[in-house]
């Protein structure tokens, strides 16, 4: 671990000042500290924001949810409002990491997680995300767990978060606070595809702080769920996952919100699948037909062709049924 200085922000203004001066925010630390130990991350200053008042979960006036950036994963998963309104979020959180990690890690940190690409985490390997211009060892290397969607020749790493897949499906927005004030960014624009700059992962400006994630109100009743496919039954990142929310009235699907995880460089929204579902009656035939669109545009690599089959299987749509 490289030497660094540590400051603790007593309030938001202190945090922003430190952030503007180049400090890296830290809350649960479950990703950052790991990566610092591997010398993948070498921040000079870390700014502990755990004392900031961002730990609330609120139902918004329109009937959506606002989850503070410092709410622990375990708190969000157990929250009655979250469980009642968006089971998909609770499930995604509870299928993530381990109980110990969920008790430490925050929602803001969860969506800021860095990839599990093993070449990224091995400082002796080539990685454009870690060291721009050094190349991508995964592209023609061992890439069973890598992305098949949203990739570029410079990076094929997946975004690891499960919760972010649910947020993407539900079309959440990210509330940010920066030196120039507040702004909101749609979740779909917040996480960036690698393109030729895989080192840039979020649409954050210098010193900006995530204050909350807002889930919009969706028509009720809303059935939702999260399906996660992995080799072992706990403590593993998704090979493929699906977040699905359906508004079914009178036996017909009126709204469909679908995203996939473990397959994209960012959580992958599936508008083509949504379009297949809307206006139809739920059935196994429908799930199968809709899922056939899930891997549209996929570019499988040498070891991860099976992810296409997993995506195209009826499982993604089936999880809400």
């Amino acid at each position, binding site marked *: 671990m*490289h030497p660094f200085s540590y400051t603790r922000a007593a309030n938001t203004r202190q945090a922003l000042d430190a952030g503007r001066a180049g400090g890296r925010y830290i809350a649960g630390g479950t990703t950052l500290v790991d990566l610092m130990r591997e010398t993948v991350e070498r921040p000079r200053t870390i700014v502990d924001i755990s004392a900031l008042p961002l730990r609330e979960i609120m139902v918004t006036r329109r009937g959506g949810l606002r989850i503070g950036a410092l709410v622990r994963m375990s708190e969000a998963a157990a929250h009655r409002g979250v469980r009642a309104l968006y089971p998909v979020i609770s499930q995604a959180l509870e299928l993530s990491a381990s109980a110990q990690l969920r008790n430490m890690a925050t929602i803001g940190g969860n969506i800021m997680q860095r990839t599990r690409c*093993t070449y990224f985490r091995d400082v002796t390997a080539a990685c454009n995300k870690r060291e721009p211009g050094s190349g991508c060892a995964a592209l023609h290397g061992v890439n069973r767990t890598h992305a098949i969607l949203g990739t570029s020749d410079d990076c094929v790493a997946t975004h690891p978060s499960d919760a972010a897949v649910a947020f993407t499906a539900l079309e959440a927005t990210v509330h940010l606070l920066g030196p120039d004030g507040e702004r909101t960014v749609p979740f779909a624009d917040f996480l960036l595809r690698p393109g030729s700059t895989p080192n840039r992962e979020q649409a954050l400006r210098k010193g900006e702080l995530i204050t909350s994630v807002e889930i919009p109100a969706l028509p009720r009743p809303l059935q939702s769920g999260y399906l996660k*496919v992995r080799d072992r*039954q*706990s403590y593993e990142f998704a090979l493929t996952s699906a977040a699905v929310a359906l508004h079914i009235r009178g036996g017909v699907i009126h709204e469909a919100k679908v995203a996939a995880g473990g397959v994209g460089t960012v959580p992958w929204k599936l508008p083509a699948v949504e379009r297949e579902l809307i206006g139809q009656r739920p059935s196994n035939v429908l799930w199968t037909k809709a899922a056939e669109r899930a891997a549209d545009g996929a570019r499988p690599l040498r070891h991860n062709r099976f992810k296409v089959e997993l995506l195209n299987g009826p499982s993604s749509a089936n999880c809400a049924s």
Partner: protein
Amino acid sequence: MSPQPQAAVGAPLSRVDGRLKVTGQAKYAADHDIDGVVHAVVVDSSIARGRITGIDTRDAEAQRGVLGVISHLDKPRLTYRQNQVSNAFPGERLHVFQDDTVRFFGQPVAVVVATTLEAAEHAASLVKVSYDAEESATDLTRGPAQDGPPPFARPYARGNAEEALGSADVRLDLAYRLSRNHHNPMETHATIARWDGDKLTVWDKTQWVIGTQNELAAVFGIPLENVRVLSPFIGGAFGSALRAWPHVTIAALAAREIGRPVKLALTRRQMYFTVGYRPAYEYKLRLGSTRRGRLTAMTHDFKYETSRYEQFWEANLALGQMLYAVPNVSQNPQIVPLDVSTPLWMRGPGYGSSAFVIETAMDELAYKLGIDPIELRLRNEPGEDPSTQQPFSTRRLRECFRVGARAFGWRRRDPRPRSTRDGDWLIGTGVATGCYDVFRGQAQAHARLDADGTAVVQSATHDTGTGTYTSMTQVAADALGLTVRNVTFRLGDSAMPPAPAQGASQTMLSVGSAVQDTCDMLREQAIKLAVEDERSPLHGVDPDDVVVRGGRLHVKGDPARGETYRQLLARNNRTYLEARGSYTPEEESRFSMYGYAAMFAEVAVDARLGLVRVRRMLGVYDAGRIISPKLAESQAVGGMVGGIGAALLEHTVTDHRDGRIVNANLADYLVPVNADIPDLKAVYLDGEDYKAAPIGVKSLGELVQIGVAPAIANAVFHATGRRVRELPITAEALL
């Protein structure tokens, strides 16, 4: 058999060191508090083959607290004498920091020593090593095999397998690929080394204190008696600590060069570089059989990986020769030298890999012939060892299957593949034989009975978590006629009476027999003292008629006539009695000795997602006498967990472009977690095998893992109709 009442042996005792462990007082290798200790961190190579062209240590040495950086540039003097008492392999062991050659990815190329671990870690990350890299070969499937067979193996043939295959009613021709696995014990390897003049003391994670002692004496060119190795507690090893690896030498070297005691603990990542692994295999098996399921021929052509500097071998031939009554067998083993580090025996070495092949092939044959898989195995049960024509000391495999089939509900099974469903899940059951050799080694022990009626027994053996402290206490307690509470067993010190490595399931048999011999001698000594003592109530009694129970000697059948050890020793002004005993196996046994198991597995498979979930497992074991039932059960459960890992999850992944191990951590190298482990049941057949050992035990620790992976693979076939001849069985193989 002992004339003593057996009160402790066979009792479901909890671990005698359990409290120490759960309260954090058990000291593992890195836990020892050594005055003035400083910390060492190894710098590993980032190429698999080539030369080191430069090592820039300026930034590292400029760090506060850094005491030095040592590499081959310093030409550290190491003797590297030949050492026969070592689990090294033919070839030449890796010499640390003696030249600029890189032989595998992750090879130690330098070590940084600093006053704190943090300073050493940081400085190690600042050491800049430059290389002249050459193209490396790490892929077993592409590397050419070495001419000639592996060490200690030669092509084997009986009968004429080719001819028998040609005329067989039914033939199978199958190809398998088994992945490399790493031992991955919970405790990472660690060594603390301290020099006092030319005497070296080492606290080490080792399954063989005597082996490590010999290796350090040989490497440093000092007399054996100048080295003492201590290893009182081990947090799992599964074979990885069966030899003194380079980091042990590095710790002692650093301590010598820096002039301070040095602690060196490998990182989890480094656990994938230099402490061995179960090698990858490519295996071709051909089977010939009659229509009625009598095997007529079996041919085994296989190759496995080894390093370029040592020729690894493991016991991968025995099962093919002795498990079933096959008249015609040929075996052709080969090794493929690659730019990798040397493998080392991992739980059930050789047997586990060959059992997967043979036992899944038997299942294929059973389906091909329409014979129940258990019945097929029983039809090929040999009456004597088909490779040596020796009688079996005991072989109760039939009984294992009979007991297991009943307990598991095997007869209720619909044998047709894909015949059983539970919702979206396809359900399957499978069975396999497990079998492992009875290895036996020379062992000695010392016992001392104190005037207060307690005893201390010791031997330079080990407790990797298997429960040696407990089981040896049980044996000693019965032989001495003491309660378990009044016996202390000590181990893990090269200064103690020698014992073999704790590997190949030989500890209970070998050290247990030595402990029994020692404690028998000590008890007999006390009895002699009593019957020859005119003041003793036992005076004049035939020593054979005296037993000891609860620390009291008395006449067999007349408990009133006797006295306690305490009374006896006090009256005779003896502060203690002591004895040193041993166990030496006969040179050549007349018997074929193996432990046997019938493994049963039930799995659920979601064929659309490629997911396999083990639902329940049952193992029934013929392991001889069970000294410690709770420990034996714990071993069996651990073996099943290990087998589930090998079957479905474990796979060390190498990027063959540069020999890099890409999943060198426990997030990416998958071992089973609690959620993967269902209801596991272990049944040990009652009985003993006094032909195998004076204490009636056979082998156990390896046996319990051998048949697990094939039972699961066979269950996956029954569930899905898909035969996977690869380990691990992953989603992509089932989609």
